């Protein structure tokens, strides 16, 4: 086990360097964009503010032309203290508060759809590869690839139009209905699940094919291995061979992919959020970029980066358990 510990610590060291690099890029890249936030806010009024307002705006935001290096050090310092600063687009709200308005919803919607999509996709992949060339195998991969090839916004708009607007089966917008009280109560929970069905279904539909195909392909390679032949020769039931012998090995690449995707959940699903008026990180990020809200951009990128790294580290741990070779 000491080997495993060493391995984990080594990975942790690698991730902290990656985190630092990401934080640094995170600081410099937004500053390479043309324009400045005061000008953008000024312009939002389309001529209704006097030109002198620019001075007041710069004053308000404390925009400084101080040396970049000094700005960088104070940025690193406040990041370590967990202080993400104050948003410009939503001034004077702290960035942390703004991120929290949508974070849970993003985790709920994008996270649930990812998990469901991963489980169903992987299972389907294992099953269809077992009966290679069977009816399911010749039907599912092409049809899911077909759906996955649609532009997502088109699929989402269409389903909103048909199931939301025309048939009125599902709500047109939002994560919960207007007449429930937000909190841990039954109507609210039901309402939020009901509101999540349509957006989640569209997200699952487009991503299902990917999980299924990659699982199917690795399964096929695994199924050709000697130990599978041995397992079959021992007379084990086909479910045991499929799930315990073949799938357990074939799932490793898919699992790494799952870890990556889990990290990216926090970046939100921009199109889903816009089309279904769902609160979340994606729209915030768009808004931050549009109004050159550096603190908000940095805060969002940092949560995404840290989530990706953390998810990867957990995948490393999980793989230690799934794959005995890493423990040697």
């Amino acid at each position, binding site marked *: 086990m000491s080997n495993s510990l060493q391995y984990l610590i080594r990975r942790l060291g690698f991730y902290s360097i990656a985190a630092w690099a990401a934080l640094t890029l995170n600081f410099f890249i937004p500053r390479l964009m043309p324009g400045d936030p005061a000008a953008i806010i000024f312009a939002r009024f389309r001529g209704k503010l006097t030109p002198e307002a620019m001075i007041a705006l710069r004053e308000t935001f404390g925009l400084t032309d101080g040396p970049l290096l000094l700005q960088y050090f104070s940025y690193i310092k406040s990041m370590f203290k967990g202080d993400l600063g104050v948003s410009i687009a*939503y001034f004077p709200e702290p960035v942390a508060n703004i991120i929290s308005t949508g974070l849970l919803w993003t985790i709920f919607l994008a996270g649930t759809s990812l998990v469901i999509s991963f489980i169903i996709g992987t299972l389907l992949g294992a099953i269809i590869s077992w009966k290679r060339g069977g009816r399911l195998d010749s039907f599912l991969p092409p049809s899911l690839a077909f759906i996955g090839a649609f532009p997502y916004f088109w699929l989402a708009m269409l389903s909103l139009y048909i199931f939301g607007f025309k048939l009125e089966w599902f709500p047109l917008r939002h994560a919960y209905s207007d007449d429930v009280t937000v909190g841990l109560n039954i109507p609210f929970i039901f309402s939020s699940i009901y509101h999540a069905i349509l957006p989640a279904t569209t997200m699952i539909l487009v991503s299902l094919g990917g999980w299924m195909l990659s699982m199917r392909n690795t399964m096929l390679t695994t199924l050709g291995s000697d130990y599978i032949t041995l397992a079959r020769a021992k007379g084990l039931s086909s479910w045991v061979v499929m799930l315990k012998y073949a799938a357990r090995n074939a799932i490793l690449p898919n699992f790494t992919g799952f870890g990556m995707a889990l990290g990216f959940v926090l970046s939100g699903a921009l199109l889903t959020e816009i089309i279904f008026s769902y609160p979340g990180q994606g729209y*915030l990020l768009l808004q931050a970029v549009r109004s050159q809200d550096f603190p908000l951009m940095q805060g969002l990128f940092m949560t995404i980066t840290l989530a990706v790294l953390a998810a990867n580290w957990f995948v490393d741990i999980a793989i230690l358990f799934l794959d005995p070779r890493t423990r040697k």
Partner: protein
Amino acid sequence: MLKTILICLFIFSAGCGTKKERKEERALTIYQENAASWVRNFNPLSTSGTARWPTSSGIYEPLFIYNSMRGEYIPWLCTDYKWEDNNKTLIMYVRENVLWSDKTPFSSEDIAFTFNLKKIHKGLDTRDSWGYLESVKALNKTTVEFKFSRIYVPGFDAIVGQPIVAKHIWEKIKDPLRFSNPNPVGTGPFTEILRFDNQVWELGKNPNYWQPNKPEVKKLKFPAFPSNEQVTLALISGDLDWAGAFIPAIDRVYTKKNPEHHKYWFPETGHTTFFYTNTMNKVLKDSKIRKAISYAIDRSLVVKVGMYNYTEPAHVTGISGKMAKWHSKDIETKENWVKYNPQLSNQIFDDAGYYKNKNGFREDKNGDLLSFDIIVVSGWSDWIRSAQVISQNLKKVGIKAKVKTYDFGAWMSRMQKGEFDMAIGWAEKGTTPFPLYRGMMSSKYIKPIGKDADANWHRFSTDEVDSLLLEFEKTSDEYVIKDILHKLQNIFINYAPAIPLFAEVSWAECNTTYFTNFPSKNNPYAPLSPNSAPENLMVLVNVEVR
């Protein structure tokens, strides 16, 4: 099992979600700003424009409201004013019997306090009031005295438009710049925050409002909409009562679905959208060339293709609608270079020595092609289509003009730095054409190319203008004001510093199923658009429950 759960969910949610509210419970449901989730901020003084609508024109109120539909000032928290001491002092008479929503009486002290707060915190002084004010004092309970450090009559607009905050609350706030004012106390018709969640918030009426029996509406509701498509859908399905959204082909998309109750009104604001030509460009610095470009533009086609015929081609002065009262009497006799006349345009280019080459494009004397970029904000589809029409128009007279789109920030930066040839943009606005002509022609705003100019992006100036502007600042005499504005118009027509494209209109839709007495063409007591602060206050007060 799954099926049963789904059916239960469906029945349950349908039961509590989609039922139509009874009439007396219906909140006036409004769309004014895009958001995926709401952030609680009701600071009316914040410069950043991040407070929720209608903070500065609904929860808080100004001294007077300029009604752009009638062209007059409506007394609000003040009842009257007078200029004294050769326009160096302004006296305001404060309305009596006004209460804050916490029942504290409102007085002249609150007004003086608000202005003096802006003096201490420069970041709050969005309209640069302390650039011309010397002191603001409450003389007695109902009189406030504004003393000016220099005579600046146009400052009146900024003064009367200031939302007033309560002294007894704000004197305790240490940093008003960063105060998000979560539980506002105002004098306006709607002051009570009934709920505030990330997807919806509700604003209830002020029980102590100073206008008797108003507002009739009990509460306002604001669902969050991140995109225009969602707003359109909500309007069509009757979920919204009042909105300020751009909807393409509105008659077919919106009105036709329910002609009795689905209404819209897009009145002209009196302002204009301009086609900017950078006067620092060696070709475009010549006013004759700028006029030739203007003659080449088929504005009725621009309006049809770019703006769905929602507006009209611009007037040569850049002012129209209710602002047209400032036109001089002999305006019809002036050169009308906004009229479509490609022959004349060709002739001017020929006379200036820019001849067409064998490909039909014009060259200067050195054989260099006349070629320009028109810069537009990416995603602003109305302007992009307009620019494309203009590009085609210019091609017909032998001018190569390519449409280039930039992200908003990049576009704004290019405009301010003067790094463009041609562009579509807005202009300075106000209650008179003064801010427009100042922004268009004052040398005060001119910066070298590469440095940010806050106005006059095209960098035009002429000696006559600056002295006229200065004279304007000093007078409150209606006759002199008119005379100066006429002179400024003539200079504008003479030099064509920028090219007026089409009249600006404000988008607004309403649904009269549950509420009535929205402003309309036949009842134009204010513009319908919720984006017309502070005028939207008059709508909030006057909308009635059906």
